[in-house]
């Protein structure tokens, strides 16, 4: 006989709230009202305004009018498709790199760190606390043309290879796609490491022992047990890395050159310098739409729609 808790079936939640029936039906709406209103007015409404603006035509002098001008979208595609593609290629590369770098870190902390575990976790979060911009600027020092990193890779002819495939140029790292991708990877690495750690830490080490007992080599044990069970962490880490990376333009500005500029650079320039709001909005909406489509496709493929 087991001690099974007797719970009245209220349809989902394990235990009903403190005083069900007594609380007014409107209470949750009142509690939610301030935050909900803030999100509706300052998130949903702006997005709608943005979409509206993206379909306007006109200019700063003569004023904007709503004309269903889908041509704005065509215009920005023609003008900015390289930036647009770069955003997704760079963000995608950075995400893959982040998985490759974060997985051993998370694995080590979860299974090998022992008493160092909590200290290492604090250290993983620590970079969050120095300014994002300052950290990115520090990479310009590390990757500078005369610095040790560049000299080292130049001397072992790695840069000649990356030059050849177009990741770098002129045997330098700074102001090349490689620098931007490395910066993006670095900046969002904690967002990949923490979900991975969370999904690895939950795993019972007994599972791997059981796999070993059932004739799996440690390599097979990893691919058949550890990796599939860590997929939720991989998926949320991927989203947390890819989405901000695709919209970022700080890395492209500090670590890249004009040749590496991304969608974010274009949106920033269109809004704040050129002040062509309708085209800027069209580009912004395009970015958001592309990301939403990609994310939905990705989440569907990985079969975890309950992620949200």
């Amino acid at each position, binding site marked *: 006989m087991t001690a099974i808790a007797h719970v009245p079936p209220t349809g989902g*939640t394990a*235990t009903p709230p*403190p*005083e069900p029936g007594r609380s007014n039906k409107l*209470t*949750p709406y009142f*509690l*939610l009202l*301030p*935050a909900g209103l*803030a*999100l509706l007015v*300052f*998130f949903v409404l702006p*997005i709608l*305004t943005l979409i509206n*603006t993206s379909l306007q035509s006109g200019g700063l002098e003569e004023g904007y009018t709503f004309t269903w001008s889908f041509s704005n979208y065509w215009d920005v595609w023609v003008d900015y498709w390289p930036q647009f593609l770069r955003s997704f290629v760079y963000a995608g590369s950075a995400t893959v790199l982040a998985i490759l770098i974060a997985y*051993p*870190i998370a694995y*080590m902390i979860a*299974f*090998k760190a022992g008493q160092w575990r*909590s200290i290492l976790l*604090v*250290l*993983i979060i*620590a970079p*969050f*606390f*120095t*300014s994002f*911009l*300052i*950290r*990115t600027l*520090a990479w*310009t*020092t*590390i990757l500078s043309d005369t610095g040790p990193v560049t000299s080292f890779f130049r001397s072992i002819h790695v840069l000649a290879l990356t030059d050849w495939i177009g990741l770098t140029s002129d045997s330098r790292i700074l102001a090349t796609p490689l620098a931007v991708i490395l910066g993006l990877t*670095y900046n969002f*690495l904690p967002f990949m490491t923490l979900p991975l750690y969370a999904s690895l830490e939950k795993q019972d080490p007994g599972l791997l022992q059981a796999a070993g007992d059932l004739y799996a080599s440690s390599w097979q044990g990893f691919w058949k047990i550890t990796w599939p069970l860590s997929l939720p962490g991989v998926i949320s880490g991927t*989203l947390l890395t890819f*989405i*901000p990376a*695709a*919209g*970022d*333009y*700080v890395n492209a500005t500090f670590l890249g050159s004009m040749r590496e500029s991304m969608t*974010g650079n274009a949106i*920033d320039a269109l*809004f*704040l310098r050129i002040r062509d709001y309708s085209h800027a*909005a069209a580009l*912004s*909406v395009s*970015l*958001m739409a592309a990301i939403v489509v990609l*994310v939905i496709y990705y989440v569907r493929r990985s079969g975890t729609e309950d992620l*949200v």
Partner: protein
Amino acid sequence: MTAVKESDPYAPTEFRPKKVGFGRWVREHLVTFFGILGLLYLFAPIFVVIVFSFNKPKGLFNYTFTEFSFDAWTGVCDVPGMCDSLWLSIRIAFFSTLAATILGTIAAFALVRHKFRGRGFANILIFVPMATPEVVVGSSLLVLFVNMGVPLGQLTIWIAHTMFCLSFVIVTVKARLVGLDPRLEQAAQDLYANRVQTFFRITFPLIMPGVVAAAMLSFSLSFDDFIITNFNSGSEVTFPMFVWGTSKKALPPQINVIGTAMLLIALFVVIVGRAIGKRRAR
């Protein structure tokens, strides 16, 4: 049990301990090796930030280490405009944290403790801002403010920061509330505590760590935000805006001093927080 020794399928076959060879040692420590490499990658820039805060650069740019000096630490505010921007960032981070924490905690209660029509929609509404790229959030707010004729400035920065911190606060406090056994509150009511007493003596002390964590997260998000602020700041200059603006003209080591100080303060807060948590659990 004597004659069948050769054919006994249950007899232990491998008695000799495996020699721990070099290849095996490498395989076992490969993960740790790559993990440590990854950590180095993570810490390299921070190391640079700290070291270069003690630099005395020759030119305007703090790119090469020339001379060890405390000048930047002793004269933090010597860089014109930097400390003003720092102060503005702190003020905005404080007020947006305050607003986001209060609104977010209340909303988290509604979402965890009540079942109501539209809860799924509310959850999506809270999730989507976190999954939207900052450029889109920032530019859409800019368009709204321009259309409504709201002058860009501290108010618009505060609104923007409160908005994007809100989702993070709600998610963090929600996690803590879900883990709170409702029976504790029922026990308090059973022991003659009315609703107000129950909230202040049981519920709030128990979700406090979650609220504090949410507030700290919110503060650092707000303090460090550049992209959203860039679109909505008008002529106001927050600290990240200052760094962005100055990076093209000059990079004084004082910027590294601020970066290092932020790290130290954050580590101090985390360590003290953990110590308090441990003492409480004892």
